[in-house]
């Protein structure tokens, strides 16, 4: 084994030992000194490695990035406090900021409804009792196990000048005397191209979650509806959708967060800058190419604020359309 691997191995073993010792120490402290009940002390001691990991790798950097967003920091030296200057520059001077916000928001607003409705329809299809449905479910779930970059590669191939999409559109383009569409090179095509790519998201995990929700709906509701002579659409609209509405809420929120945070596919496909840049790409560029960590952090926190506002609005609206059985007064 290479020397460097042995060092790394022992290094991480020592980290594990340290965590075990901390957990043991915490248990002893809580149980024998603070006089907590044994089970309480043991519980907290056992989750302490996770709490430490969360504090060090998630909460700490999160708070630090908020601080950095008010500073000028280039990765080297000490951050210099500049107050709200980064935010003011973004909102008033930065020529790339608002176009990237617009592109990201439009992408989310177009793709999330398509994704939620599409995956629900796929789930309804997968919920049918037909021969070989298990095979269909496996096939439909396959996209969920494919890495983003592999998927992006396929899409890039489909969208290239002589790819499938241009081939399918070629008769129309020929009539209109238009040359092959440069999907990732022109601003007017980037959004449609990424939106088409997002259709991929209607398969896989989202559809499977909907399928699980559909299978939870009690058959008795449909039997009663059948007795009342309800049509298939009425059963879908008045029984299925209300009963799975908490899952729809979950999917919308997850979809919004995922869409606004689009990064790996966009970085791999790399539309030209004049065609458009998503917010996370801008963050990456500002942080790592231009070494302005303060500006990058301020864009990240603005993105966080957008996600938070969207999420709160959806939650707020959910009281009007999400049906929780537990809320029914019996």
């Amino acid at each position: 084994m290479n020397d460097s691997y042995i060092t790394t191995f022992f290094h991480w073993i020592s980290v594990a030992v340290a965590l075990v010792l901390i957990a043991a120490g915490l248990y002893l402290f809580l149980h024998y000194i603070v006089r907590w009940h044994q089970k309480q002390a043991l519980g907290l001691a056992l989750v302490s490695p996770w709490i430490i990991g969360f504090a060090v790798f998630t909460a700490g950097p999160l708070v630090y990035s908020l601080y950095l967003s008010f500073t000028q920091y280039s990765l080297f030296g000490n951050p210099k406090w500049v107050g709200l200057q980064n935010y003011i520059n973004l909102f008033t001077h930065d020529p790339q900021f608002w176009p990237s916000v617009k592109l990201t928001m439009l992408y989310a607003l177009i793709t999330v409804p398509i994704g939620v409705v599409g995956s629900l329809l796929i789930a309804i299809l997968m919920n049918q009792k037909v021969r070989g449905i298990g095979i269909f479910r496996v096939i439909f779930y396959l996209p969920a196990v494919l890495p983003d970059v592999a998927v992006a590669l396929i899409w890039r191939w489909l969208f290239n000048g002589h790819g499938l999409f241009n081939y399918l559109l070629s008769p129309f383009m020929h009539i209109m005397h238009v040359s092959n569409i440069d999907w990732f090179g022109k601003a007017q095509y980037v959004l449609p191209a990424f939106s088409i790519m997002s259709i991929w998201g209607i398969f896989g995990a989202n559809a499977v979650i909907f399928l699980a929700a559909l299978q939870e709906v009690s058959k008795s509701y449909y039997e009663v509806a059948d007795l009342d002579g309800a049509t298939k659409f009425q059963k879908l609209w008045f029984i299925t959708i209300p009963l799975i509405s908490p899952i729809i809420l979950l999917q919308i929120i997850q979809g919004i967060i995922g869409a606004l945070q689009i990064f790996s596919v966009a970085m791999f496909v790399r539309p030209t800058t004049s065609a458009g840049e998503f917010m996370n790409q801008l963050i990456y560029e500002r942080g790592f190419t231009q070494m302005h960590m303060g500006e990058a952090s301020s864009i990240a926190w603005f993105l966080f604020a957008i996600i938070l506002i969207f999420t709160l609005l959806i939650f707020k609206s959910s009281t009007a359309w999400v049906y929780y059985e537990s809320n029914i007064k019996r």
Partner: protein
Amino acid sequence: MKLRKLSTAVLAVLMCFSAVEGCSPTPGNGETSSSGRATIRLATWAGSEESKELQKIIDKLNSKSTSYKIVQESNPADYDTRIKTQLSGSSGPDVFWVSAQNASQLATRGAMLDITDYLKKSSNEAAKTSDYIGTTLNTFTVNNKIYGLPWCEQPVIMYYNKDLFDKLKVAEPTDSWDWNTFVEDAKKLTIDKNGKHYGESGFNKSQIVQWGTSLNGWPPVQMFIWQNNGDVISEDMKNCPIDTKEAIGGFKFYANLLNSPLVPTQQEIKDHGFDQMFKDGQVAMFMGGAADSLETQVKFNCEVSVVPAGPTGTKATFGDEDGMAINANTKNKDEAFKAFIDLTEAIQEWKVMPPRKSMNSLTVLDKQHLNRAKSMPEIEKSMSFARQYRYYDNYADWDDIFNKEIMDKIINGNDTNVESLVKSAKADLVSKLKK
């Protein structure tokens, strides 16, 4: 009770592991190993083949040295991001390859070791600063202090498909060719499906099968602006003269050429590959870096020449530089410098073109690059008028605006209204210059 004993045993074993870790045999950055030699970690962006060639050089140096052992860490994927984050933390390599653009950015931020005094004391040939050609050291110099050394400067040269020139009876490029002759040649070499060339009656521009040349942002527009006696950043770094008649002329030549049928569309370039189109015989003239050595990679008869001069005869080409530096936080600075300077000299002998006068004689170059002897005179000529960008600490900010506000719109937006693009970007560009 059994559980308690088991827990104690597990803890004891784990503690042994942790104790062993404390006396682990492998040294870290610049630390001295038990053999008495300092381990010097070298970070590079070398791809797999390049990395194998580099390893041979490193093996030779390691076998000669009694004081250091260089360990290569090649990470071509996203190298710049990786090196910046490594250097900002404590996991940085001792010595690292650095591009010209990142050099001043990292040097001004204290990430690169000031090697001015080390160079003065060193007897290594690569340490003689007076031997470096023209302005090649400027990239690695901040406030008269030297923070790294270039190991290669590759000027942009013209690779051309001699078979196509001969077939279409086009005269080969000479020292006197300029924009006009270049465009005329490109027209003759741009052929449609029916064999008609650009400008010939019946030429169908929607059925081109062979293009005169190719552009996609490379080579940089600055090269054409310099050829037209203009510039994009003034010498005193206070202004961006992009709206002068000369600069506008350079931009326009570039934009008109790029949006003409003489150059494949950007979509075609993306689909078929920029240099691949030249290698496949679809593009007759290709402006590439001297180190690309395309003439050794193609099946047809490929030759090289200098790039065309501007309309007034001004010769200029872009000289891209790559170099190496030492991590300012390395633990063993002396040994890191020894490894650095030995390696710099060895790489300068390996790469085209070495940025040193003493290495730029044809006798030396021909010996070092036997398979490129025929190309060396043109490459050497190109070196004599190669220029670099005027890099400074926040050059990346300037470059970002230049590319997004002007070049991307010309290249991907097919915008040929150069005056308007330049006018709207100028204030932003000036605001990003050194204060």
